[in-house]
């Protein structure tokens, strides 16, 4: 089987996902849209009545929205790690899953910042961020870094798409002429000529290298929104790397979830194999180890030095009446569980890996909530307040509605994207199939295939 045939076979297999919009797709789209609509209604209420409808008040000025913001920016790291680092390490097995990773990155980077907008009292003045910018503010850093990151991720996604667009526009496919034209336009007339080959390779390498520092910067400046303040639990020097690590970690979890989802949905068992789950699982527990280490170090130092406000905060986190339950869950499901399940070979199945990933991702979300809210409830001057909503933050249904709307929007965008572009990169996957079958290849991944 030559390369061309491989791509054609692969295309044939993936074709139904992009040719037809089935009733199942409609079902997905409509139900997700309903959730989003619910969120829009909440948004309408929030704009019409003001932030009064949220659970935020003068002491806890940020709540679910900011936790969601960190969470989404965090999972956007999936792309950076898989396509950036694994690309540079030239690991063959990554190829079928790079598209999923890239899409997570782009979509999460679009949705995350929307939560910051929800947090703003004066959305009508959004443009002030660009006409009166102050370079000293971590928010300015964030705006610039995230925009840069988004542009970079889109470019990267596009680079890995060009060859597939070219295939899509030249192969027989049961799609309208219009769409074919769009594919042709997007393919930039890529015919894999020798010049084109080199140019594409160079460009992909550039982006793979540069996207890593950008990703690190993005999450560091995000952490510095908290780290630069004088608040207990935030004002920590390890917050930059801590956030970066937590982000990659949760990104890997979401990656596994997405793989599982598309594998089932589109019947991609031949391409996304147990090997992918196990390898990503390995990466995950490696990151989890680092993350666990940071977590331990963070709370140990705060507890040991027992400064007044840090102690107050830690007391809240370890108190079952307050945040003890959430804190326990965040650490057990977020650190220990993945270790046990992925670490013990017997427990290591696709399903179990997916399950712990799901729990881990949830735990990471809880962790973000625990970073934002308890600190804001720990004021340096005694609150001496009688209004309960000023003392304790409780998210209102509107905030939950918008949270779920964001998750729905994430899934929906993913779903719609997969109807337009093949969720498995055709060209690159064919390449690795060819390499494997040609048998002269003796590189690492072949060994790992047999190993798995």
């Amino acid at each position, binding site marked *: 089987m030559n390369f061309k045939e491989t791509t054609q076979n692969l295309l044939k297999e993936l074709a139904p996902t992009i040719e037809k919009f089935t009733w199942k797709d409609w079902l997905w789209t409509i139900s997700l849209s309903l959730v989003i609509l619910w969120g829009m209604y909440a948004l309408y209420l929030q704009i019409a*009545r*003001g*932030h*009064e409808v949220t659970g*935020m*008040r*003068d*002491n806890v*000025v*940020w709540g679910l929205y900011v936790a969601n913001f960190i969470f989404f920016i965090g999972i956007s790291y999936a792309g950076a790690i898989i396509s950036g680092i694994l690309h540079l390490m030239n690991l063959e097995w990554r190829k079928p899953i790079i598209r999923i990773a890239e899409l997570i990155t782009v979509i999460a980077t679009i949705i995350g910042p929307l939560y*910051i907008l929800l*947090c*703003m*009292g*004066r959305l009508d*003045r*959004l443009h*002030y*961020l660009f006409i*009166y*910018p*102050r370079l*000293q*503010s*971590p*928010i*300015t850093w964030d*705006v610039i870094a995230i925009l840069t990151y988004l542009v970079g991720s889109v470019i990267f996604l596009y680079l890995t798409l060009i060859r597939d667009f070219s295939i899509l526009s030249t192969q027989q496919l049961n799609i309208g002429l219009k769409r074919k034209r769009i594919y042709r336009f997007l393919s930039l007339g890529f015919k894999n000529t020798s010049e084109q080959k080199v140019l594409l390779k160079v460009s992909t390498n550039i982006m793979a290298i540069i996207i890593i520092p950008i990703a690190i910067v993005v999450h560091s400046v995000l952490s510095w*929104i908290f780290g*630069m*303040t*004088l*608040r207990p639990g935030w004002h920590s020097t390890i917050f930059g790397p801590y956030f970066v690590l937590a982000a990659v970690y949760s990104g890997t979890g979401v990656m596994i979830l997405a793989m599982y989802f598309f594998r089932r949905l589109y019947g991609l068992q031949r391409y996304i194999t147990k090997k992918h789950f196990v390898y990503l699982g390995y990466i995950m527990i490696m990151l989890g180890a680092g993350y666990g280490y940071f977590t331990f170090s963070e709370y140990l130092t705060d507890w040991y030095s027992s400064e007044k406000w840090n102690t107050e905060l830690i007391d809240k986190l370890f108190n079952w009446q307050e945040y003890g339950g959430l804190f326990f869950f965040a650490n057990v499901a977020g650190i220990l569980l993945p270790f046990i399940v992925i670490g013990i070979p017997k427990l290591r199945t696709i399903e179990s890996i997916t399950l712990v990933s799901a729990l881990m991702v949830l735990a990471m979300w809880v962790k973000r909530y625990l970073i934002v809210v308890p600190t*804001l409830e720990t*004021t*340096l*001057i*005694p*609150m*001496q*307040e*009688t*209004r309960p909503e000023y003392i304790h933050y409780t998210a209102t249904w509107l905030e939950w509605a918008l949270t779920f709307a964001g998750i729905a929007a994430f899934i929906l965008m993913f779903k719609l994207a997969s109807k337009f572009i093949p969720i498995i990169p055709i060209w690159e996957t064919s390449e690795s199939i060819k390499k494997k079958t040609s048998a002269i290849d003796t590189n690492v991944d072949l060994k790992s295939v047999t190993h798995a």
Partner: protein
Amino acid sequence: MNKSRREFVKKGAVAGAITAAGVSAWLKDQGIKEAGEKVKLLSQDGQLIEVDKAFLKLHAQANSEILAKNTMGREGIPGRKFVMVVDLSKCNNARKCVTACQKMHYLPEDKEWLNVKLMKDNEQSAPYWFPKMCFHCDNPPCVKVCPVDATFKRADGLVLIDNQRCIGCKFCMAACPYSTRVFNWDEPDLSQEVKDLPYSPETSVPSQHGTVEKCDFCPDMVRKGKLPDCVTACPNGVFYFGDEIEDAVTNGDETVRLSELLRDRAGYRFMEDLGTKPRVYYLPPTGRMFPVERGFKDLTEEQKERYKDVNLD
């Protein structure tokens, strides 16, 4: 010395001189040439103000034109560095400062830019009343983080907010270690007249939905040579206000040298170790004028409830 520190403000002659001196100093600072012709005005409280004609014109325009121009609100009063001293030994939680401030800025009852905490530093030490306003820090954590320059530090030491610039991100609120700032979570309940007042960062009126606000040291009053409202409202003369460069602060009754006051009474700044460099000094609550229980006298049940966690023994 004691005798010369007695009350004098009620005397017309002195009062006349006070404001006249203040105004003409201000005029000189502004670089405005005095027309030479003096006009005498009677202020609301029956005190005489003597002003130069050149100033009169300026003043009439002040609210509408000059203050509305953001630059003046942003630059501050030249040659001044405002400072406040709070004498904790004299505070009995009379809350007159709180209500005066609310009245001046048209704030609802549940919004306090200035509030009185009941502090108890540790198990052994005695509780004391602690009025807390914006500290107008010289190294303000809130100003650092503002992404749009809506909250700013002026050369005269004041930290103000321009609520026509504020995007409501609330970062400054999270950054302020003293929980000083408040947010307008919904449309403020103001009469049409108040809503129509020309806004300036110096008056902080009217409040705006979706923006942050806080204690501003009443720069509009200060510009007129008058003390902020909390200072004059306090029946116990707890607050001293003045210009650090002139080395003088006054609580309306007595005027003292800032350096002497801080030296003699061991003035300190709250949470000095945070490095925020507040412009508010506290005089320790030694030799108290009132027992701490006095502070509960005229409180509503709701207000008493606030202090329930503080052990009074």
